[in-house]
């Protein structure tokens, strides 16, 4: 289960497991309900996550889009070296900040 901490409009989410086809639906539900509940800035902590597949990428982009719509934003922290490389090569870090810390 994802770990969630709230700080006003800012929410920290730590999925704790790879973001792939099997885990995407639950995470989508969680994020949608957070945003409906007023979350504006979502910080996804990707500690311990080694893999993001196409659906996972879709989820990240959709989350960014949903948050932008309400004037907020997404950021990723603690990403692994591979994932950092993937997201920067794909230029996704131009849409939302991605950091290894």
């Amino acid at each position, binding site marked *: 289960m994802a770990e969630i901490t709230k700080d006003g409009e800012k929410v920290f989410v730590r999925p704790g497991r790879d973001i792939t086809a099997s885990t995407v639906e639950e995470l989508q539900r969680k994020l949608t309900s957070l945003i409906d509940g007023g979350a504006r800035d979502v910080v996804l902590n990707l500690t311990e996550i080694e893999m993001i597949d196409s659906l996972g990428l879709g*989820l990240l982009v*959709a989350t960014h889009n*949903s948050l932008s719509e309400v004037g907020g934003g997404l950021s990723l922290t603690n990403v692994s070296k591979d994932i950092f490389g993937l997201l920067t090569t794909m*230029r996704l870090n131009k849409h939302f900040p991605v950091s290894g810390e």
Partner: protein
Amino acid sequence: MSSEDDELLKSFLEESREHLENIEADLMDLEEAGEGFDGELVNKIFRPAHSIKGSAGFLGLVTISKLAHTLENVLHMIRERQVLPVPDVVNLLLRGYDLLASLIDNHNESENIDISQTVAELTNIFPGNTKESSEKTVDIDSPGGISLFEEDELSIEQARRGGKFIYIVEYDLIHDVHEKEKTPLDVITEMQKTGLILNCKVDISTVGTLKDGFSKKIPFYVLFATIIDPDVISALFQLEQSRIHSIEKQIKDVGLAGEETSSGPVPVRTEPVTLDLSREPDWLEEVKGFAVRGYGGVGVLALNPDAVVDNARDLQSALLFSLEKFECLKLDMSGVEEMDLSFLQVLRSAHKTFESRGKILESMAAPPETVSRFATSMGLREEAMGFLS
């Protein structure tokens, strides 16, 4: 609304209008100042956005506050010199402030007005993304006319040297990657093995939001430079031909296409090239891990066992290097035991490139059986790899 609220709203509206009166003139001054802008001028433009953001937020005017916040961010980046006030940027700011003024004039309706387009444009300004207007760039569009990339002419020129083709490869991460049981990382790695990703872009607006169900289509466009030629590239990436587009026409229109494409076929030399390997090479160097020896106008490139798997990119570089240096290049494949498909594709493309320049690429001796067996197992016709026998 209480009369106190009324008062607050009234003074907010008055103050905001005052703040915004001079914005246009200030922005024009900023654009004119360019690189040598004065920090105080930026502050002058920043302060209205900042105070409107705060007051609007307090009064529950979320849309106004959000737009002000976005403007504030851009000005902050300018103040920090992460972004310069070039015309493109200043225009976006002008539009943003115009919209802000009209939202304030219509504050009762402001919550219903869609500002997402303007916000997206302003958010798209980030360090490293703005170019000086004097740099020459080429606009690369998708076949459907969607503007994809703006590349500087120099990068395109450099990528085309040595016979490289430049393509727009159109992936749909769901259909072409996920449904083929691959991951995005697989795809990127595959591409980087056989060429150079000049630029790429996920079409995030097509993906939609969390409520749209984002697993329908994720368009991913890659501007890719490689020596692999058009009839081979589709097989290599397992993508229909219709999704791989050469940008030749687009850059030709801008006058960038070089002589390689406009000249006719070059005569191929037919005399056999003999080589006396007992003598010392007059030239010997290691190119990207491959030993290359030169005997006059003839080169010999030795393919060692560990150099041919996952190494297409380096092989490609070594071949291109040899193309420039020699009239004829002989491949010493005696050491080859294992290989992958990219290796064969690179060889095949290189052969075509050599041919188009009137040069020769051939094997020194009959290639080991492993090579012919592998080629056959990959479905490559004999004549495709015939140059190796």
